[in-house]
């Protein structure tokens, strides 16, 4: 394509091989001066963001790491305890259960959510009457917070007064008066459905944007070659939206792994403590047990798990790209 040449950066090798270097020292000092001023400019431009990141990420995270080596009660003085908090976290079977539950919740909610957002994106991408309205409706739940969304679904799924169990009973799908929050499986199902309802719109929008950037000529060419819908999807659409799709996967997995609000409002970790996520475990340590040092250690462990997941995802995608 012709416009790529315009957009590509000047070849550094070409600049280096400046012909006629009769006064190399002068040229070098001029270059280094320019480089220094460019460096300063770069720092000046990056400073606002760097300061914000330092203040609101590096500093709190540093403080969290620091606190994790202390017994830091809400009342009273902190005392250093070395690695005790970490051995405590890693040897607590309840933390293991929370990690296991969070991983399975992440897998279920992410896979279903991503497939559904892809399906919806394909459905509402072509032009049809009322397309904007349908897209807006699908996106609407994204605009409310997780806590109100959780409370809304909690009241809709209430066994005594909710509309959903009543509807299911009338349709003959479930016996009347069933309490969905009494069983771990049905509880998880309600939360997963709510989470997908709440998040699928955003993922769908990102994927539509990716699909819209595919030039129509590509589809026309495929059509001329007699490609069917499935082939078009797997050979053209999906490979060409790899970047937005990776973004959606990364965002979905990280936000799902860090789930808290929906469980706090809908299940309180129940029934029988079966829906306690890692962040819920962290909340309990910090705000119920009021043990801030221990909670800080949990936070550091969670950040490490998140880092491993994210790095693994990026590596996997790189590996896929490297293949011919």
């Amino acid at each position, binding site marked *: 394509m012709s416009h790529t040449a315009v957009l590509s950066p000047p070849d550094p090798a070409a600049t280096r091989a400046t012909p006629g270097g009769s006064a190399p020292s002068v040229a070098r000092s001029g270059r280094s001066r320019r480089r220094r001023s460019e460096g300063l400019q770069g720092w000046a431009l990056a400073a606002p963001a760097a300061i914000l990141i*330092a203040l609101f990420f*590096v*500093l709190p995270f*540093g*403080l969290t790491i*620091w606190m994790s080596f202390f017994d830091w009660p*809400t*009342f*009273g*003085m*902190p005392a250093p305890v070395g690695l005790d908090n970490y051995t405590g976290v890693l040897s607590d079977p*309840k933390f293991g259960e929370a990690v296991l539950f969070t991983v399975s919740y992440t897998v279920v909610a992410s896979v279903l959510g991503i497939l559904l957002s892809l399906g919806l994106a394909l459905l509402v991408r072509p032009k049809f009457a009322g397309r904007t309205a349908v897209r807006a409706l699908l996106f609407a739940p994204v605009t409310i917070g997780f806590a109100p969304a959780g409370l809304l679904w909690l009241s809709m799924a209430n*066994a*005594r007064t909710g509309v959903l169990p009543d509807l299911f009973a009338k349709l003959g799908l479930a016996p009347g*008066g069933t*309490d969905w*929050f*009494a069983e771990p499986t049905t509880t998880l199902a309600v939360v997963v459905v709510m989470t997908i309802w709440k998040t699928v719109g955003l993922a769908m929008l990102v994927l539509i944007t990716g699909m819209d950037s595919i030039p129509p000529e590509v589809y026309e060419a495929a059509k001329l070659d007699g490609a069917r819908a499935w082939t078009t999807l797997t050979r053209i659409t999906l490979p060409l939206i790899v970047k937005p799709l990776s973004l959606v996967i990364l965002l979905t997995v990280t936000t799902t792994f860090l789930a808290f609000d929906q469980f706090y409002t809908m299940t*309180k*970790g*129940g*029934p*029988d*403590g079966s829906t*306690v996520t890692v962040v819920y475990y962290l909340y*309990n340590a910090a*705000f*119920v*047990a*009021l043990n801030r040092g221990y909670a800080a250690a949990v936070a550091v462990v969670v950040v490490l798990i998140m880092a491993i997941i994210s790095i693994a995802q990026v590596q996997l995608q790189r590996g896929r790209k490297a293949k011919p």
Partner: protein
Amino acid sequence: MKRPNRSTAAALAVGAAITSLLLTGCGTGASGNAAAAENLTAEDSGATLTLWVRPGNEAVTDAVVEQYNATHDNQVEITHVPADQYVTKFAAASQSGSLPDILAADLVFMPQIVQSGAALDLTDLLDDSGALDNLAPAHVQASTADGRVYGVPYVADTSLYVYNKDLFRQAGLDPENPPTTWDGILEAADAITALGDGNQGFYISGGCTGCLAYDFTPTIWAQGAEVVKEDGSFDFDNQATQDALAFMQQLYENGDLPDTSKTDTGDGFFSVFASGKVGIDFAGGNGVNTATLGTDPTFEFGLAPIPGAEDGQFATFSGGDVAAITKTTKHPAEAWDFIQWLTSPETSEDVYYNLPALPPRTDVTTPESLGEQFSVPAELVKQGQTYVSPFYNEVVASAQGPFLEMFQSVVFNGADPAEATKQAQKAADAITQ
């Protein structure tokens, strides 16, 4: 990944320096600048007093303050602090020296507040004013450490059971003689469940830790057993707790207690009973008042104490809010003026009973016009008990704590009470040790 370069290292060093500065700041605890409590005399000088309350009891907390403001030069300004953030907000404020003049907290959190040293010793002042021996005992118990009293009752409430007299009549039970033993409760609940038509004999909010502390603990206390030991640790592994759990299990197995109780985190505390389909509901006096005062109930109901296994045994959790003066207040004399007014017999009689609400004092007569809805709780408050443990939050109030797990595993999942209390004991000991 890139190796951190020199500038990254410099940034980290600066970060560490700021962190340690912040930490030194965090280390300084609350320092008192209030005058010595024993030299205080109440002053109505027109000062503005700040007061923290938790939401939920505005009908009492705000209405009482309104009365004080209307009759005094001092003016009390209320801030509503969300209940589940109260302790953390309190801790943060006490470290930064920004506590209000007066704190009103859920009485179960008072042991922690007293232990932190943030509250002013009111013992001598209350003794001189004549209030000390005439206040709701559970509130005083929760505010006492080493024989010194740091708080007074502000909102009084008490656990009890409400029963539907109409359903009692339908089931052939005597509505004027409510059950006084566990067997009596079981018998009445079975009879009402047997009426059919969606009627349930019994209800308790089985997924709500606060409600269970309030309404299940009295069945243990009624047998003469203690749940919290002197040192603030817990005693679950005993016969009384096992028997109380078995009693609740029986109600569930008989079909008197509905399945939905397990996931009721408090929204059904009184509303399930208000539907008119429940015979007996373990609830609380204020819940009944909030739901029924100023309305016209569609059925007749009565109130009675939560019994033990034997006739004559009963107990009650006296809950509500405690008010305390902070050590950091700049207006100790004015704050004491409010507390003195709050605990006077006149305020109990003229302000609280006019609302109407249960008063802080136990030596005033309940107006007959208020009926059994107030006379029964007012008598119960005099014998109210409470949890006095700094570990209440973690052991009892937490939805993942051993207390709820013990109750639910036995009552709804059919676990053996002896095994469940042993597990709960182990989990509670791990927290308190």
